[in-house]
């Protein structure tokens, strides 16, 4: 059964026009997200993951600007909508969970007030019904004693509780698409596991699709159906989660996977591999493939030309001239 297409990003570009030159934070990203599917977007810090997610909601601040492409959500291009129409979509059809639960809640309002606001804006309910709904949402995300917590201020709650409140806020209007921008990064691992469990649970319940942005490959393996690996504003590999982990083709993906310490590498006394070098300065991008200065497999053509995102086997796209053929063999070397 073919799933219904919910979000299609076509050649999306977001550039920052700074005093020192144009920074191509998002440089021609293509993504497809089907209904109630989880798409993981992975990459190092500074590779444009967050900007990409903000671009979908059109929340990129000056000096950042959309420089082309389309964001087709339910058949309509969000980039062509008016600010007024966008406001109606934000929060009701596309919701977002932010990285820092410590700062993403306004310190002067109670938790309940803030969750309730989304409901009051997007739904035709009076304050009493909204309050009831809010308490229900708080209960749904596992906040104990929701009636009491409703009247508490953000500083009275722990990070995990706040992130639960953020999730309640995001899900209060049953969005079709939930963007989670490093939603668990600021939490410690046990809380992280709880929050992920909760998100997975709720995702099934309300049948929302999730764009799951993270730098943590382990989380992607846990959450996502398909994975897009981003490097310097471009997608370098795109496939199902199984393919990415079992059969990574792009040297960058391979490097990311190899740089995770595991019990097996310890047993076999294999040294932990790291990707050499640093991400290039956005003001001084290398010619050709952006990854070539750090790539152990780079050849002459890599230094001259940016490779295209090619389908090398059904459902597996790679942006590389020399994709890795057999990951297992390479790792033996």
């Amino acid at each position, binding site marked *: 059964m073919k799933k219904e297409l919910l979000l299609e990003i076509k050649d999306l570009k977001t550039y920052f026009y700074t005093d020192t030159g144009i920074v191509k934070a998002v440089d021609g990203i293509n993504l497809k997200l089907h209904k109630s599917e989880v798409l993981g977007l992975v990459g190092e810090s500074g590779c444009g993951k967050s900007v990409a997610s903000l671009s979908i909601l059109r*929340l990129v601040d*000056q000096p950042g600007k959309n420089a082309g492409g389309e964001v087709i959500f339910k058949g309509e291009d969000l980039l062509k909508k008016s600010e007024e129409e966008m406001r109606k979509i934000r929060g009701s059809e596309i919701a977002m969970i932010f990285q820092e639960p410590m700062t993403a809640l306004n310190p002067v309002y109670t938790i309940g007030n803030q969750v309730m606001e989304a409901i009051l*804006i997007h739904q035709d309910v009076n304050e009493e019904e909204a309050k009831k709904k809010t308490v229900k949402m708080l209960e749904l995300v596992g906040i104990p004693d929701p009636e009491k917590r409703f009247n508490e201020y953000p500083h009275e709650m722990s990070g995990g509780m706040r992130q639960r409140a953020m999730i309640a806020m995001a899900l209060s209007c049953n969005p079709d698409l939930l963007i989670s921008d490093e939603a668990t990064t600021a939490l410690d691992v046990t809380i992280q596991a709880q929050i992920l469990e909760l998100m997975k649970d709720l995702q099934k319940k309300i049948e929302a699709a999730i764009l799951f942005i993270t730098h943590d490959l382990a989380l992607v393996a846990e959450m996502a159906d398909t994975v897009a690996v981003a490097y310097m504003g471009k997608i370098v590999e795109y496939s199902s989660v199984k393919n990415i982990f079992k059969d990574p083709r792009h040297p960058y993906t391979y490097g990311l996977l190899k740089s995770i310490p595991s019990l097996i590498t310890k047993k076999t006394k294999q040294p932990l591999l790291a990707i050499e070098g640093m991400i290039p300065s956005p003001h001084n991008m290398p010619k050709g493939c952006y990854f070539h200065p750090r790539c152990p497999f780079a050849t002459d053509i890599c230094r001259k030309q940016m490779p295209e995102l090619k389908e090398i086997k059904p459902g597996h796209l790679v942006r590389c001239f020399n994709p890795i053929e057999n990951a297992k063999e390479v790792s033996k070397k």
Partner: protein
Amino acid sequence: MSTLRTEVQFTESKPESYLSRVTKRFLKHKLAIIGLISVGSIVIFSFIVPLFFEYGSTFSDFSYLYGSPNSQYLLGTDSMGHDLFTRLMYGGRISLIVGFSAAIIPAIFGIIVGAVAGYYGGLADNILMRITDAFLSVPAFPIYMALAKLMGQGVLNIILVFSFLGWMTNARIVRGMYLSLKENEYTEAAKAIGVSNARIIFRHLLPNTMAPILVSMTLTVGGAILSEAGLSFLGLGVPPSTPTWGNMLTNSQQDIFLAPRLVIWPGIMIFLTVLSFNFIGDGLRDALDPKLYR
């Protein structure tokens, strides 16, 4: 586990709200309490006590000019036979009304200008802030005098003039705060749930700027009372038929050696009121932002 929970809840009881903590800190500030009590007494003295007095502000006893204090006229009478005590009470009304209005009206205006400039930034910020700069570079007192002359004398005009020239400081404070507040993640989060800009400016961010605004407002009250006294002293404020502490000083200029109390009492009232408001302002500043000044 469950026993532990109930214990914790027992000791924690109801979490302390921001307001109650601020109140607690304010109450620890002795000078501020003195200021508050003194302002309270002055308000009662000006607005409630006159209700129990038989003479109005225009009452005068021509048979008892420059009269010294006695049981009928508690502080004596002035050159026109007005009862000084009554005039002080009615004068307090005007001075306080001028002080409060001159603090609140320009604050509202300044908040709007500063919020819009700081939140939107760019061109709007540039235009609004250059206008603010222009207003700030005008020497205030000569302009007060010119405007007072132009619009005629009267309480309302004084308030208008003060409002016209008093909003810039607030605008600058608020703009600065909005510049940093709009970068906060919760501003972005609010946008992400579809909150409109106007609502973000006035509902989400405004409460975060209230602390310095409140402090600046209390300090403005004292300043406005002083300025009113100054203008009235120069004969450009409120006309002599309506008593204010300022014009009571003016009217008694020539009598300063004949009957010093005619000058001393209004002077003491002005001094006390301004000092009290400044104490309250200090207390508020410490209470609202304990990180500073400690």
